Structure formats: structure tokens, C-alpha cells
């Protein structure tokens, strides 16, 4: 009889089938005993488990606010399955039915895919796009690194050049010299040229016309200016671009307003003007814009107000002895005026001196501040460096000199003597180290003193005759020079000479400083030497004086002098007699011999 509560194992108990075994509780009962009352029998109790309480736990009771079921702690969580969409697996997303290791299947799959219509059309389209890009790549390496390690190189390693752009010829038969040029202040579209003859007293047949040219139209002058006598100099007013001032050969100054036509608006009266040709006229900076001053070889510098040209407003006589003596005055040939220094101006003279004057001085004597001993001949041009106004350039005789205001004895830089005389010069308005000179042999020299101090950077032969005037346009690129034969040539200079370089101003300033210092040192040295000599000569004189003085009175001096004189005479006589005797003896001996 099977115990009703004992588990019963059906089937085999072999190990292999343990997993498939089911644990079944089987209650077996005789049929007859169905529904019989159960007869429970008392049995002894058996101790199954005896668990005594752990004493240690009762010592530390844990208080809990809630009733706790004495059961195991169970946690519940769900683990979500991540399906990876990336190609972690090596081969690509093969469809389920194809075993990717099976070569055949893959090939077959591929072939099938290759026949797909969509595939064909899309590949054709993609192919053409792709081809374009491939060809692009082959044509140009688009991603090439341009200028990998290069910095910006400085340009102008090309040789400098000056191109002749235009030649403005004097329309008259008898050609006159272009003695002065002036660019119009509004970006230099026009050029005013003064024509006259510099040859002494040749003015009779010459026309007195001077012209304003438009540089775009070289064949005909734009406007004709008719002064009372040929103009030697002509200047545009830098502030008021339609007014001009000109100085005539007969000493008058004339004023034009181009809006009013070619006749002079006003000109100065003959009595009060210069007595010699007016060689230079410069407009002054003033509120009214109507002031100008002029210089002439008659030794005067006159100030004018164009509203009243009958009389000069001021007069200065270039007399170094400061007496206002016209006879002893120096003839002014060039003027210099810098707008930033309105009280000072400089005059270059025929005698080779450059006079620096102060306009605001109280007395005429004080007006002449100092002189610089410049050249051996007339100083044809004086101009301050537009960037470094303490230094100025002068030309005359055969060389050009650069001066510093402080050093009066000599120039700080001078060029070598050239082959022909320099007639005019000007600084470049854009580059502090560049200046232009023109010579009697028709050569225009462009000097860049930072580059080369001994020779001009560029020499251009502009024409056959001599060049008398030069003017650079404000932007520094166009240069106009006027020749003996009445031609005004316009040149364009290369960017190398007209574009300012880095640090140019400081370099030039440093150069000038250096030269100035050198001159100062030399001057100082010379002065020292002179001083020493003077000291020495003074000393010796002193000694003599000390010796003679106090010992003899004038009578005694006289007596002594007589005595000395007679003794000297006697000595001389004796010498002569001896000489005569000797000669007599010789003659006698000769006679004797013959």
C-alpha cells in the first residue's frame, strides 16, 4: 500500500530521464473503500525541526513602522532586448534565408539583385554624377594647398620705370620754354604751364600766352591765359581749385579765375611790383584763400592779396646786412612754403644762399632768420620734405642737397656732381624717400635715398633740350616736366616708386637723423679746432704784448727803430759792395786770362 502522502515516481528512475520526469503525488485507494469515513489515528508527535531563537538578535530589535511579512525579497524587472542596426556583423544584412558563408547563395543573390530594374536606373544615374566628380578631380587638384608656407611677398622686384604718357606741345611756332608747371588740385586732371623765354632779353616776338592743359587732350590746350607779359611762374591755388596766380617776366603778378575766362581778373600795377622777372609765386594758407607771395631777382619778396593787387600787402628785402638796402639784396629765384609751418618760409637765391625767414617777426631785420650756404650757383628749387618738414631739398649748380634745418654750415646729404646743371626738383608727395630732379641735358632723375644714395634710382632722358621744370602730381604717379622747346612731358612712374613701403618714413627719418648727427659732430670738431687755433694765436700775441709793453716809451722805441734801420742798411750796403768787389775781381781775372 502506498502511503498516501509520499511522492511517487512514475516511470524510470534512470538519470537520462530525470528532466522529463514529473513529480506526481498519487493517492491510491481501494474501490471499496471509497467514500468510507476516514479514520484518523493519533500518532505520536515527532519533532521535525527545533529552531530556538537567536539570542543576539533579540538584543537589537529593529523597529519598523510597518508590519513586515516574513518573506524573501523579490525584485521584478524586465530586460529589453536590443536589436543592433549597425553592421556589427562583418558581412552586411544578408536576408534571412541566405547563409552568408555560402558562396553560391551569395553569388546568386547578387546576380539577382543586379537584374533589378530600380538598380539599373539608379546606378546609371549615380554613375554619371560620379563621373563628373572624378573628372573634376582629375582636372584640378581642388584641395591643393596654395601658398602653404609663404607669407605675402613684397612686390616690386621689377625694375622701376617711367613711361611717357603724353607730350603737350606749345602750339606756337616759336617755341618757348616751359618754365613752370602746376597740377590742378582736384586730383590733377589739369596742368597749368607757364611759357616764357629764359634767355636774357629775348621777349619781343614771343607770344605771352600760357596754357592750361587737360591731360587727356594733348593736342589742344583747354584754356589760354593771357597775361600782360610772358609768365615765368604759375600756380594753382591748392584750396580754391579754379584760381591761379602767375608771375610775369616784367615783374607783375597776375590773378586768374578760370570760371571767368582766360583774361586776367587782376594784375598788379607795374610801379609796385617787382623790377625783375617774378620767378616764383606761392599761395598762402589763409582764411580768405586770397593771399600769395612772390620772389624775384630784384631782391624783394612781396606779399599780395588778390583782391587788391595794386599794391603788395607786405615787402621784404633780402638784404643780409639787414638794412633794407635794395642794392645789396640777393636775388630770389625760388620760394618755399609749407602749410604746416605758416610763419616760416625759405628763399633760394641767385647767389647760392638759402635764406630762412620768419614772417611774423616784428622788424624787417629780424625777418631773416638764418642762411644756408648752399650752392655755387643759383638755387633753383627749395622744398621741404612733405613727411619730414625739418629737412629740405635744394638744387643748384650740379648737385642736389638735402639739409636739416638745424645745421647751417652744410647739407646733410648731397649727391655727386652731375654732368649738367640741375634746374628743378621736387619731393614725391607719397614717398618720403623719393625725389625728382631735372637737368639741362634733358634727363629726369628719380632718386630713392633709401635704396641708393650715390646714384639716381632711375634716369630717364625725356627730351633733347634742357628740362626746366618738374612737378609731381598729388598721387605720386604722374610727373610733368617742361622743356626748353615748349614741351611738357607727362610720365607715369612705376608703382615701385610711387607706392609707399612699410616703415619708410621711420627709415628715412632715421637716415636724416644719422646724417644730421654726423654733421653736428663734424661741425663741433671744426669749431674745436678753430677755437684751439684762436687760443694759440691769442696766447702768442699776448706774450709779445707782455714783453714789449712797459719797458720802452715811444721815443725810445723810435730811437731803437732808427738804430735798427741804419744797422740793417749798412749790413745790406756792405753785402752789396762785397758782391761788387767779387764781380770786379772775377772780371779782372777773366781779362787777365784772355
Amino acid at each position, binding site marked *: 500500500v502506498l502511503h498516501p502522502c509520499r511522492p511517487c515516481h512514475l516511470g524510470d528512475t534512470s538519470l537520462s530521464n530525470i528532466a522529463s520526469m514529473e513529480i506526481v503525488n498519487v493517492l491510491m485507494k481501494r474501490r471499496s473503500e471509497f467514500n468510507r469515513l476516514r479514520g484518523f489515528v493519533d500518532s505520536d508527535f515527532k519533532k521535525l525541526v527545533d529552531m530556538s531563537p537567536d539570542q543576539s538578535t533579540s538584543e537589537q530589535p529593529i523597529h519598523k513602522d510597518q508590519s513586515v511579512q516574513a518573506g524573501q525579497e523579490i525584485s521584478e524587472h524586465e530586460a529589453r532586448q536590443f536589436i543592433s542596426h549597425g553592421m556589427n556583423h*562583418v558581412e552586411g544584412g544578408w536576408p534571412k534565408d541566405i547563409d552568408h558563408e555560402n558562396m553560391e547563395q551569395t553569388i546568386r543573390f547578387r546576380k539577382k539583385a543586379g*537584374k533589378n530594374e530600380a*538598380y539599373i536606373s539608379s546606378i546609371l544615374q549615380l554613375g554619371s554624377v560620379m563621373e563628373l566628380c572624378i573628372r573634376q578631380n582629375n582636372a584640378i587638384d581642388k584641395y591643393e594647398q596654395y601658398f602653404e608656407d609663404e607669407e605675402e611677398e613684397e612686390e616690386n622686384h621689377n625694375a622701376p620705370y617711367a613711361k611717357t604718357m603724353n607730350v603737350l606741345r606749345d602750339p606756337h611756332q616759336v617755341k618757348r620754354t616751359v618754365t613752370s608747371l602746376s597740377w590742378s588740385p582736384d586730383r590733377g586732371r589739369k596742368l597749368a604751364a607757364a611759357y616764357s623765354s629764359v634767355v636774357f632779353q629775348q621777349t619781343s616776338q614771343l607770344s605771352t600766352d600760357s596754357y592750361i592743359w587737360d591731360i587727356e587732350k594733348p593736342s589742344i590746350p583747354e584754356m589760354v591765359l593771357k597775361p600782360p607779359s610772358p609768365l615765368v611762374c604759375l600756380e594753382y591755388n591748392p584750396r580754391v581749385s579754379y584760381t591761379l596766380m602767375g608771375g610775369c617776366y616784367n615783374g607783375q603778378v597776375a590773378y586768374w579765375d578760370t570760371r571767368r575766362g582766360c583774361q586776367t581778373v587782376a594784375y598788379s600795377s607795374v610801379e609796385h611790383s617787382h623790377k625783375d622777372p617774378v620767378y616764383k609765386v606761392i599761395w598762402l594758407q589763409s582764411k580768405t584763400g586770397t593771399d600769395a607771395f612772390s620772389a624775384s631777382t630784384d631782391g624783394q619778396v612781396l606779399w599780395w592779396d588778390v583782391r587788391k593787387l595794386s599794391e603788395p600787402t607786405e615787402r621784404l628785402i633780402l638784404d643780409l646786412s639787414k638794412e633794407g638796402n635794395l642794392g645789396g639784396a640777393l636775388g630770389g629765384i625760388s620760394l618755399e612754403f609749407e602749410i604746416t609751418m605758416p610763419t616760416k618760409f625759405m628763399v633760394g637765391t641767385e647767389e647760392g644762399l638759402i635764406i630762412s625767414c620768419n614772417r611774423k617777426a616784428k622788424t624787417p631785420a629780424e625777418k631773416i632768420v638764418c642762411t644756408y650756404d648752399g650752392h655755387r650757383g643759383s638755387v633753383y628749387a627749395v622744398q621741404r620734405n612733405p613727411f619730414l618738414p625739418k629737412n629740405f631739398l635744394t638744387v643748384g649748380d650740379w648737385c642736389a642737397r638735402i639739409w636739416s634745418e638745424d645745421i647751417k654750415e652744410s647739407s646733410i646729404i648731397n649727391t655727386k656732381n652731375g654732368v649738367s646743371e640741375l634746374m628743378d626738383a621736387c619731393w614725391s608727395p607719397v614717398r618720403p624717400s623719393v625725389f625728382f630732379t631735372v637737368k639741362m641735358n634733358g634727363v629726369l632723375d628719380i632718386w630713392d635715398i633709401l635704396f641708393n644714395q650715390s646714384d639716381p634710382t632711375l634716369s630717364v632722358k625725356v627730351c633733347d633740350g634742357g628740362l626746366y621744370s618738374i612737378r609731381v602730381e598729388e598721387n605720386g604717379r604722374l610727373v610733368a616736366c617742361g622743356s626748353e622747346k615748349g614741351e611738357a612731358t607727362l610720365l607715369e612712374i612705376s608703382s615701385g616708386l610711387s607706392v609707399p613701403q612699410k616703415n619708410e618714413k621711420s627709415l628715412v627719418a632715421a637716415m636724416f637723423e644719422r646724417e644730421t648727427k654726423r654733421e653736428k659732430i663734424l661741425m663741433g670738431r671744426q669749431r674745436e679746432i678753430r677755437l684751439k687755433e684762436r687760443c694759440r694765436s691769442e696766447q702768442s700775441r699776448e706774450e709779445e704784448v707782455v714783453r714789449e709793453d712797459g719797458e720802452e716809451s715811444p721815443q725810445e722805441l723810435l730811437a731803437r727803430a732808427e738804430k735798427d734801420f741804419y744797422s740793417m742798411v749798412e749790413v745790406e750796403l756792405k753785402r752789396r759792395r762785397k758782391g761788387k768787389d767779387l764781380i770786379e775781381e772775377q772780371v779782372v781775372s777773366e781779362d787777365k786770362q784772355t
Partner: protein
Amino acid sequence: FADVEETLKRIQSQKGVQGVIIVNSEGIPIKTTLDNTSTVQYAGLIQQLVLMARSTVRELDPQNDLTFLRVRSKKNEIMIAPDKDYFLIVIQNPSA
């Protein structure tokens, strides 16, 4: 079918082209001129790149779509022309 072959041949014959691979949207290389390992590598890696690029373009502007992708490296350039279902991948070395 024949046109496809022609196209591929033309591309292959261009100067500097090192390999051409056609991959379908699942990432399976359909046609290739490279060896198997490289092909599989390219296909797998490039597909991810294209998906990322496309989603970037579309996120910035939903009306926009990726038309071409060029990956320029020191040694060569990988050009990918994506389509709805396929990619055409070409590896070119332009200076060669």
C-alpha cells in the same frame, strides 16, 4: 544591364580610380572591383557614414537631401553617390 556594365567600366578606366563598389541599402555589396575584405569593410563603414550624413542634412532642412558625399583624405578621395536604395562608392587618388 549592359549599360550598367558600361558605366562601371568607364568609371573604372578614369585616371586615378582605385576601386568601385555598389552597395544596396542593406549594406550588401552588389558589385565591386576590390577584393572581398576591403569591399566588405568599405560597404559597412560607408553605409553608416551615409546614413549619418543624410540625417544631418535632413535635420538641418527637412526639404533638403543628400546628393553627394566626398571624403578627402591624405592619400585618396572616397566619393559616394547615394540613392534611395543603393550607393555607388568610388575610391580615387587624383594625383596618381
